[in-house]
C-alpha cells in the first residue's frame, strides 16, 4: 500500500499528456452520448480561461482548496499513508471555521481570520484522529477508515445546518453568514480571488521546506520509502511518524474546508465541496507528490472544475463529467509508471 510507484518528475510532460488524454476521452464520450461536443468544450474553455476574471475568480478560486488538499494527500503519502478521507476532513474544517467565524464579531480581523483557519485545522485533525487511533491501537488500515468517515462528515454538515448552526429563521439548511472580521479579503477589487490563495502558496513553500530541509521531513520520507529499514535503523518510530503525518494531513484538509468558508461561501452549506477531496488525489498524483508541482496541477484541476461548472450552466452537461477526466488522469499516471521503470 505504501509504494505508489509514480514516474519521475522530469517526465512532467507525460502528466500534461495524461490531462490532455482525459479531455480527449471526455470529448469522445460526450460525442458518443449525444451531447453537443463543440458547445460543451467551448463552455469548458471559456469557463476556465475565457477572461482574466474567469481565470482568477473561477479557476484560481477553485484551485485554492485543491492545492491545499493536494498538499494534504502529498504529506500523508510521503509517510506511506493514504488519506482517502479528505472530503470528510474538509467538511469538519468547514464546520469548525463556521462555528468560530460566527463568534468573532468583536475580534480584530487578522486575529479573527487566524482563529477561523486554525479552528478548521483543529477540526480536520480531530476528525482524522479516529482513523489514526484505530490504526495505532488495532492495526486498522487508514484507507477504509478515512474513506468511511467521508460519509460521516457529510452527515455532520447536514446535521449542523439543520441543527446547532442553522440560520436564525430556521427555514434554510444553511448557517448564518460568518462575521466580516473572519472573512478573507479579496485580492483586488471586483475579483472573487481571496487571500486563501496566498495561504495555499505559503503552505506549498512550508511543506517543501519541511519535507526537504528538516530532520522531521527526512524521517517522514524515510518512513514512507522504507518502513522496515527506518524501523531497523532504531531511530525512527515509524508508527508515530505515520500517525503524525496523518494528523497534519487531516489538519491541512480541514484548513482547505475552512478557507472555502471564510474565503468563498461565508456560510456553511450542504454540498460545499463538489468532491474536492477526491479531485485532490488526482492533483497530488499528477504532481508526483511534489509540493511545488501541486501548485501547477491544482490550477489545472481548478480550471477543469471551473470549466465543468460552466459546462453544466451553458451546455447542460452534468458537472460530474469532470470526474471522468480525473479518473483518466489517475489511471494513466498509474499505468505509465511501468513504462518508466
Amino acid at each position, binding site marked *: 500500500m505504501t509504494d505508489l510507484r509514480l514516474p519521475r518528475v522530469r517526465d512532467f510532460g507525460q502528466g500534461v499528456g495524461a490531462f490532455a488524454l482525459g479531455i480527449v476521452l471526455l470529448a469522445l464520450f460526450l460525442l458518443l452520448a449525444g451531447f453537443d461536443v463543440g458547445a460543451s468544450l467551448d463552455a469548458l474553455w471559456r469557463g476556465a480561461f475565457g477572461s482574466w476574471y474567469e481565470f482568477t475568480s473561477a479557476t484560481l478560486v477553485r484551485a485554492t482548496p485543491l492545492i491545499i488538499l493536494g498538499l494534504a494527500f502529498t504529506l500523508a503519502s510521503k509517510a506511506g499513508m*493514504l488519506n482517502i478521507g479528505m472530503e470528510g476532513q474538509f467538511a469538519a474544517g468547514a464546520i469548525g471555521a463556521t462555528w468560530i467565524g460566527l463568534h468573532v464579531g468583536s475580534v480584530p480581523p487578522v486575529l479573527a481570520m487566524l482563529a477561523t483557519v486554525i479552528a478548521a485545522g483543529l477540526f480536520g485533525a480531530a476528525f482524522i484522529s479516529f482513523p489514526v487511533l484505530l490504526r495505532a491501537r488495532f492495526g*486498522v488500515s487508514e484507507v*477504509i477508515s478515512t474513506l*468511511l468517515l467521508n460519509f460521516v462528515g457529510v452527515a455532520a454538515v447536514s446535521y449542523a445546518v439543520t441543527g446547532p448552526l442553522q440560520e436564525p429563521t430556521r427555514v434554510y439548511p444553511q448557517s448564518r453568514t460568518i462575521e466580516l472580521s473572519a472573512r478573507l479579503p479579496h485580492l483586488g477589487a471586483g475579483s472573487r480571488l481571496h487571500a486563501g490563495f496566498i495561504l495555499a502558496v505559503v503552505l506549498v513553500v512550508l511543506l517543501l521546506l519541511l519535507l526537504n530541509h528538516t530532520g522531521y521531513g527526512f524521517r517522514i520520507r524515510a518512513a514512507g520509502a522504507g518502513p522496515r529499514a527506518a524501523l531497523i535503523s532504531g531511530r525512527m518510530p515509524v508508527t508515530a511518524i505515520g500517525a503524525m503525518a496523518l494528523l497534519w494531513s487531516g489538519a491541512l484538509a480541514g484548513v482547505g474546508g475552512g478557507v472555502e468558508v471564510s474565503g468563498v461561501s461565508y456560510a456553511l452549506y450542504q454540498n460545499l465541496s463538489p468532491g474536492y477531496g477526491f479531485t485532490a488525489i488526482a492533483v497530488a498524483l499528477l504532481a508526483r507528490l511534489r509540493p511545488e508541482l501541486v501548485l501547477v496541477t491544482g490550477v489545472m484541476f481548478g480550471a477543469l472544475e471551473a470549466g465543468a461548472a460552466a459546462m453544466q450552466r451553458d451546455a447542460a452537461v*452534468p458537472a460530474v463529467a469532470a470526474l471522468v477526466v480525473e*479518473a*483518466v488522469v489517475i*489511471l494513466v499516471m*498509474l499505468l505509465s509508471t*511501468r513504462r518508466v521503470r
Partner: protein
Amino acid sequence: MSDAILPVAFVAAAVRVGTPLALAAIGEAVTEKSGVINLGVEGAMLAGAFGAAAGAFHGGLLAGVMAGLIAGVAVAALFAVVAIGARANQVISGTAVTLAVTGLTGLLAQRIWGTAGAGLSLPTFAPLPVPGLETVPFLGPAFFRQSVLTYACYLMIPVATWLLFHTRFGLEIRASGESPSAATAAGVAVARTRTLATLIGGACAGLAGASLVLAQVGTFTERMSGGRGFIAIAIVALGRWHPWGVAMASLVFGAATALQYMFQASGTAVPYQVFIALPYLLALAALGIAVGRHRGPAALGQPH
C-alpha cells in the same frame, strides 16, 4: 402496525436492505481472498445499478439483471487491467475506477432520463413468498417473503463457501492471497487467478447494484450506491473473509440501516443524520473489532 408484527417487519427490512450489501460483500470476499482489495466495488455497484436501470427500462426485469451483472464485470475488468495487469496501487486504482463510473453514469443518466432520473419509474421485483417456508413463524415472513434477488443471495453463500474452500480454484485463490510467490512456485497462475476472482467480485457487485434498483428503489439517481460498496469492504473484514460471516455481518448493517426508517417513521427527537451516519460508524467500529483478531489474507493489497 401492532407491536407483535414490528420485530418481523424490522428483520424483513434488514434482510431487504442488507441484500445488496451481502451480494457485493460476498463477491469482494472472493476477490480479497486472492490478495486483491478492490475499492472499485463501489463503482461496479453503481455501474450495476445503472445497467439494471437501463436494461429494465428497455427490456424488462431479466434484461435489467443481466445488464447490471455485465456492467459490474466490465468495471472490475477495467480495475483488473490497471491493478493486476499493470500492478499499480490497488487502493488508488479502485478509487479512480469508482470516480470514472460516477462521472460516466451521471452523464449517461442525464442523457437518457433527464435531470437526476426524476419521474423514472422502473419495473421492480415483487416479494415472492416461498411456498411452505413462508408460513414458518417469524422466519417465514422475515426471510422468505423477499425478492428473487435475495434468494439468489442466500444461494450464493454456500456456493461461494464451496468455491473458496472445496475446489481447486478456491485453493488457488487462497494461495494467491496468502503467498503469491509460493503459489507461483507451485504452478498457480497468480495474475490469472486474481483476475478471475476480481471479475467474480465485479459480477456480484453488479448484481448488488441491480438489486438496489430493481428490488428496492425502483429508479436510478446519480451516485445512488452512496458508499455501500465501501461498507461492503468493511463487512468483508467483519465477516472474516468467510461467506457465512460476511452474510451475518451484512444483516447487521442491513439492520442498522433499517433502524433509520423505523425511527424516522416513529418521529423521535434524535436527529435523522445520526441514523445516516450510523452504518459508517458501525463499519469503523467493526473494523477495530474484526481486524484486531483476524488480519485477513497475508498478501492483501500487494501487487504481484
